[in-house]
């Protein structure tokens, strides 16, 4: 037979809770308990509150450029909750703050980062993650390498990396996926397909029907999930994590979500987005969806919401106070972390900046007397 099919594939899309908060009980079975959903909902509201306030901080000149996470909280929290805090590594880009906080990053660190202070990246001992990654897609290789180290040492740990739909156009995405599948590393590639890479829509970014199918080229289990559905995101991430931990290698998850805000505070999405599209996605907001679910189950009341909002406000104030209360670093900090041990020339330059001198060497200045 001259022609035969050598490969066929299908991609599943999974949704457990629809935008009205109605759940497919069969699929929901064994995912999250009502109590867990309730706690995660409260957490999601707090993260949203901090995100909204961070936007205002930038607008009032108290913080630099900030990329809002608004609308993508279920993806970050669902994935983060499926991973083991202090054991598994998170290798983020910059739109999964909620997962980082859940895994132990002090909340004000994220603000510090966007306030132009590297101390926001100074991941505390025992907290397993890399700092926010500004270039697109480069961090995925680090996740592959980190999890490769786990595999070499036979440790039951995994690394999960987060990135957007645009990042899958980068070469490093493909190199990371290829390395991970070739070496069967315990890695989760978690794509937050939020439909927009700054101003370029997903359809213009790639010609493939889904992002998830890109993983097929690497022989990797892959799935598309409703990224605004906490239960579904948790379920698919937990499955990928269990598989990786059991030696089953890497997985790919395309979480279909939406960037409800601008790309960053330096962006104006009205220039390129149809307001009707944004409006439609506001109806699928993961926070609203969860509240509908909890309310329908008589697990949540308006009074509880009011009390939570108040609690969130206090928390946000504390976080901002922590970020703004930290003293400006000294100029020595510019030098002190360049190498483990500072080379002599950098010692000189450090003193130069400290004293605002021209960096003349004392011995050189003394040459005038030699003459």
């Amino acid at each position, binding site marked *: 037979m001259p022609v035969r099919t050598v490969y066929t594939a299908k991609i599943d899309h999974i949704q457990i809770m629809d935008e009205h908060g109605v759940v497919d009980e069969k699929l929901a079975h064994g995912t999250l308990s009502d109590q867990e959903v309730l706690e995660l909902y409260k957490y999601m509201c707090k993260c949203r509150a901090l995100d909204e306030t961070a936007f205002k901080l930038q607008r009032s000149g108290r913080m630099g450029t900030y990329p809002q996470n608004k609308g993508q909280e279920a993806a970050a929290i669902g994935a983060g909750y499926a991973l083991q805090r202090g054991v598994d590594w998170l290798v983020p880009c910059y739109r999964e703050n909620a997962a980082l906080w859940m895994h132990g990053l002090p909340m004000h660190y994220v603000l510090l980062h966007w306030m132009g202070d590297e101390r926001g990246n100074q991941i505390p001992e025992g907290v397993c993650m890399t*700092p926010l990654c500004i270039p697109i897609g480069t961090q995925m290789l680090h996740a*592959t390498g980190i999890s490769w180290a786990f595999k070499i040492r036979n440790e039951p740990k995994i690394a999960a990396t987060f990135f957007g739909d645009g990042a899958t156009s980068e070469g*490093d995405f493909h190199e990371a996926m290829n390395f991970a599948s070739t070496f069967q590393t315990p890695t989760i590639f978690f794509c937050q397909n939020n439909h927009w890479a700054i101003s370029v829509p997903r359809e213009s970014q790639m010609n493939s029907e889904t992002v998830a199918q890109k993983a097929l080229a690497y022989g990797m289990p892959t799935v598309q999930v409703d990224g605004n559905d906490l239960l579904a995101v948790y379920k698919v991430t937990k499955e990928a994590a269990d598989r990786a931990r059991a030696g089953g290698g890497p997985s790919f998850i395309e979480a279909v979500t939406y960037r409800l805000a601008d790309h960053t505070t330096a962006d104006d999405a009205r220039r390129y987005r149809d307001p009707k599209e944004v409006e439609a996605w506001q109806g699928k907001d993961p926070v609203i969806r969860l509240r509908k679910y909890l309310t329908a189950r008589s697990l949540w009341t308006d009074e509880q919401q009011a009390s939570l909002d108040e609690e969130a406000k206090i928390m946000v104030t504390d976080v901002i106070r922590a970020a703004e209360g930290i003293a400006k670093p000294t100029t020595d900090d510019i030098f002190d972390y360049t190498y483990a041990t500072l080379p002599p020339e950098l010692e000189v330059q450090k003193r130069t900046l400290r004293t605002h001198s021209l960096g003349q060497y004392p011995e050189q200045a003394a040459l005038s007397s030699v003459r």
Partner: protein
Amino acid sequence: MTTTQAHAAFNPKLRRRTDDETGQALVECNLVESITLTLAQEMDLDDRVVCLGEDVGVNGGVFRATDGLHARFGGSRVFDTPLSESGIMGAAIGLAMGGMRPIPEIQFEGFLGPAYDQLVNHAARYRTRSRGAITIPMVVRVPVGGGIHAPELHSDSPEAIYAHQPGLKVVMPCTPSDAKGLLAAAIEDPDPVVFFEPKRVYRLPTREWLQEDRYTIPIGQAKVITEGTDLTLISWGASVYQCLEALDTLPEDISVELIDLRTISPLDRDTLIQSVQKTGRCVIVHEAPKTIGLGAEISSIIQEHCFLYLKSPVQRVAGFDTIMPYYKLELDYLPNASLVSEAVRQTMAY
């Protein structure tokens, strides 16, 4: 030099003997054999050390620098990777973050290009951007330079590009004994080191007897090869051998101090400054293009620190500011002994 006991002998084909005076175990190596031996010794000592790169496993690398490592340490320590330089560099960074001591090999310096982003924008910056929370101890091994009749992009000298990047250390030894000590130092260094290996002198016919037991040579120390009082000749990599050849052609009454930088970054300024303050004359020799090459920086350091000691302008003998030619013309392009000799004579006659 610090010394510790090495493990069982690697590569039994190498000639070995005991030094009559010191009782020290010696082994006879060329540059590439010395590198392989050191890799084996370091992998013996430290389970965290892994080698990865294109063809470094079963094949032992295109220059055979990892020859025998896969057989000795197996496929969980020596990895044949996909053909993917950014992948190699990025995954190595991840391995380092994950607690390993990776030694990625980039097959030729011309293929550092695809890995540049990972090396410069991540490996070099991580200690600083995380304020010391995340560090990248890794040694990037890269054959470098021209003179082996290789195809395009197999003969360049990009050391200044990487030396210009804060956060990286750049090393380029040119003798087997220096390579052994510097490679061991690079592997134990807590920061990323680009370890350039001048491929033109990988297999010089004259091998060197060197100490077999582990030792380190501190990164950042130049070596005075010959002491002299009239002129300081500074070079590194394969060009050191052209300088040595030039010395043989010079009149005996010209006393030249030849310095091999060995480390490109951080530069051993003190050795250079002290030498030129003594001699008052300086010639710098390198393969890389002249303009904005490392010679320019060294020349500027000398100007800053030795101005009143100078008896003549600092001279540079360097590659031209052109694309490295294909191999029919490469020897015309590269600095050679007669040019070095001429530069020394002119500087003396100034």
